[in-house]
């Protein structure tokens, strides 16, 4: 068993990994930037050490510092979480050469499958269907134009080192290509330190279906079924669910089998996800592989009953998978909402700041993987995801109803969030009928743009007015102005006395 695990990440995923280590009896080491001294992962870890200033390149991307700390404090393994260094093959190799276990695949497999272009070559070798387009980085807008002409418009430009929709541009006409190429490349350069982009044919209205894999270091690889992540805004996943409403056992078996073959062909180990596009004839096309734990892994955990982070750690310790493909059974339905600090009513502008009030949902079938607490100041320096709210129920219909129930209980004060957006999506007949594809949400928002503020529905107009007045009234008791109102002065004095004990009744 590992002596001590260093978690090279922050936010909800650092906390989630900490909890897994604690459950396995492994001491934990957190690292933090100056923006995160008071972050939840620092509070919950056994040890915590400063990395550097807030910007990621000076802190969470400083692999050298992280390895130095690991060596100094006697950590014999590093869990990278997702984002930051998690898909950085060079960092994985640095870990290997310094004898610290990188909880993830070997750097060799990351180099093959982590780069989108290399992965497309591997897919061809493994005989896996993929989208038409190039399997190498594009040297110039001109080369891009040639490939595009070959496969036919519309096409999609993507960063070879990419992920999370960064460095990605859809192009519907040749004349748009040069500008799109430039901006995709520069965004990729900024986000991943590599401007390499490639091009593929754009599948019309595809669903995003991905297969979760687990591979041990003894040649066993199993598929844990699929997740559907078609609800995206500008290529960013917003809602994920398992299983997909349109994947039947046969399709699940075929996609899972193809995914396992590709992983084994590259000597892949630990947890990984292979992303596919599914067209309306249910043909699937290899999209890319994420050589790490995914944000949305909890929905798979809920329907399979397995703990993916526990298994990541046990696999990294050299243990064989404790089950086989035939043991994997899906039960019930799980849905995840990514709660962001952003203002949907104002162009989804990020909304950092102090969380002045936090009322969290609970009860049956609700799991929250959260990275916040009341009083926490959401920093401007990182991804604005606050929390993952996950609902599990026997059926998709009840899972949706349960999520709506939890959203009603959830209050985040002081900053703006996308909580209200989920309420709208989960109430949309299209979503409820699972008529979704990767363009669904952008169309939904275009058809019904969010109001700048929720409009008061009839039933809550009077209570809202009354509450506002009461908050104001009881507040003004403090400066006593209300007590000069003459007429009701005595009644107010009574209230003032009650106020002193912190209640207005």
């Amino acid at each position: 068993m590992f002596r001590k695990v260093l978690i090279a990440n922050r936010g909800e995923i650092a906390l989630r990994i900490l909890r897994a280590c604690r459950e396995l009896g492994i001491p934990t080491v957190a690292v933090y930037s100056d923006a995160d001294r008071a972050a939840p992962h620092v509070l919950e870890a056994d040890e915590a050490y400063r990395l550097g200033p807030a910007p990621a390149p000076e802190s969470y991307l400083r692999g050298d510092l992280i390895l130095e700390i690991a060596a100094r404090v006697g950590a014999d393994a590093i869990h990278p979480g997702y984002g930051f260094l998690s898909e950085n093959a060079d960092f994985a190799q640095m870990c290997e050469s310094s004898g610290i276990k990188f909880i993830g695949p070997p750097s060799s497999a990351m180099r093959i499958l982590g780069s989108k272009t290399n992965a497309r070559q591997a897919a061809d070798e493994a005989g896996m269907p993929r989208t038409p387009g190039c399997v190498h980085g594009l040297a110039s807008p001109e080369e891009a134009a040639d490939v595009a002409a070959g496969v036919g418009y519309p096409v999609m430009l993507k960063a070879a080192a990419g992920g999370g929709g960064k460095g990605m541009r859809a192009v519907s006409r040749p004349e748009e290509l040069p500008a799109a190429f430039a901006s995709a490349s520069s965004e990729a350069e900024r986000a991943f330190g590599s401007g390499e982009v490639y091009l593929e044919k754009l599948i019309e209205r595809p669903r995003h279906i991905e297969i979760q894999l687990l591979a041990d270091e003894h040649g066993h690889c199993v598929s844990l079924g699929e997740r559907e992540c078609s609800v995206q805004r500008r290529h960013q996943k917003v809602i994920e669910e398992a299983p997909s409403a349109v994947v039947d056992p046969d399709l699940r078996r075929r996609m899972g089998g193809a995914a396992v073959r590709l992983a084994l062909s590259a000597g892949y180990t630990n947890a990984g996800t292979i992303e596919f596009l599914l067209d309306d004839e249910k043909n699937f096309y290899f999209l890319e592989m994420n050589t790490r734990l995914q944000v949305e892994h909890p929905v798979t955990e809920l329907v399979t009953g397995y703990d993916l982070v526990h298994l990541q750690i046990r696999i990294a310790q050299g243990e064989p998978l404790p089950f086989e493909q035939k043991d994997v059974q899906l039960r019930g339905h799980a849905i995840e909402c990514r709660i962001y600090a952003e203002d949907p009513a104002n162009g989804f502008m990020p909304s950092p700041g102090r969380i002045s009030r936090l009322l969290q949902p609970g009860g049956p079938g609700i799991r929250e993987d959260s990275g916040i607490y009341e009083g926490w100041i959401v920093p401007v320096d990182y991804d604005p995801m606050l929390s993952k709210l996950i609902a599990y129920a026997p059926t998709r219909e009840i899972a949706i109803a349960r999520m709506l129930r939890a959203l009603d209980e959830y209050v985040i004060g002081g900053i703006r969030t996308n909580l209200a957006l989920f309420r709208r999506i989960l109430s949309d007949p299209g979503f409820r009928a699972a008529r979704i594809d990767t363009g669904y949400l952008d169309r939904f928002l275009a058809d019904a743009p969010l109001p700048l503020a929720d409009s008061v529905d009839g039933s809550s107009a009077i209570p809202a007015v009354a509450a506002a007045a009461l908050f104001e009234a009881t507040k003004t008791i403090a400066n006593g102005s209300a007590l000069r109102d003459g007429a009701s002065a005595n009644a107010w004095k009574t209230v003032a006395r009650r106020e002193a004990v912190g209640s207005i009744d």
Partner: protein
Amino acid sequence: MTLNLEIDGRACQVEVDPADSPGQWRIRVDGQPVEADAHLLRPGVLSLLIDGQSFRIVLDADPNAPALHIGAQRIPYRIDDPRSLRSRRRHVRTDGPVTLKASMPGRVVRLLVKKGDVVAIHQSVLVLEAMKMQNEIKSPKDGQVRDLRVSAGDTVAVGDILAIIE
């Protein structure tokens, strides 16, 4: 006491006075009486019973833009209490020139309009990268770009003026 309230765009006058028994309040909204049983659970968290209907209402206390959370709704409001300082602060005016300010630190990725352009309400004026996201800053009104104070690549701090729309 009497308060002038602007909520969800509608203005109304509210008289609120404590009744004799604890937690009971006599409230009149535009003259219409409302019997409310109110209980403050924690500062800013209120339980209201009105004719048996139950509401848990949470105050989102931002002095400039206070709001209420009711169920999944977030409802901004404004108080025009002659005694309250707040009322002296003006609402965001959309007539005349409007100054577009950076609501967060970030980097200007590119400009989508140039000085003198005519813009429609909610039309994107420029792209600001912050928190790893590219965000389009939109015009709050129909008008004309009278001034652009930033160019692509600039780093801006909270409150920096980006543009002026008239």
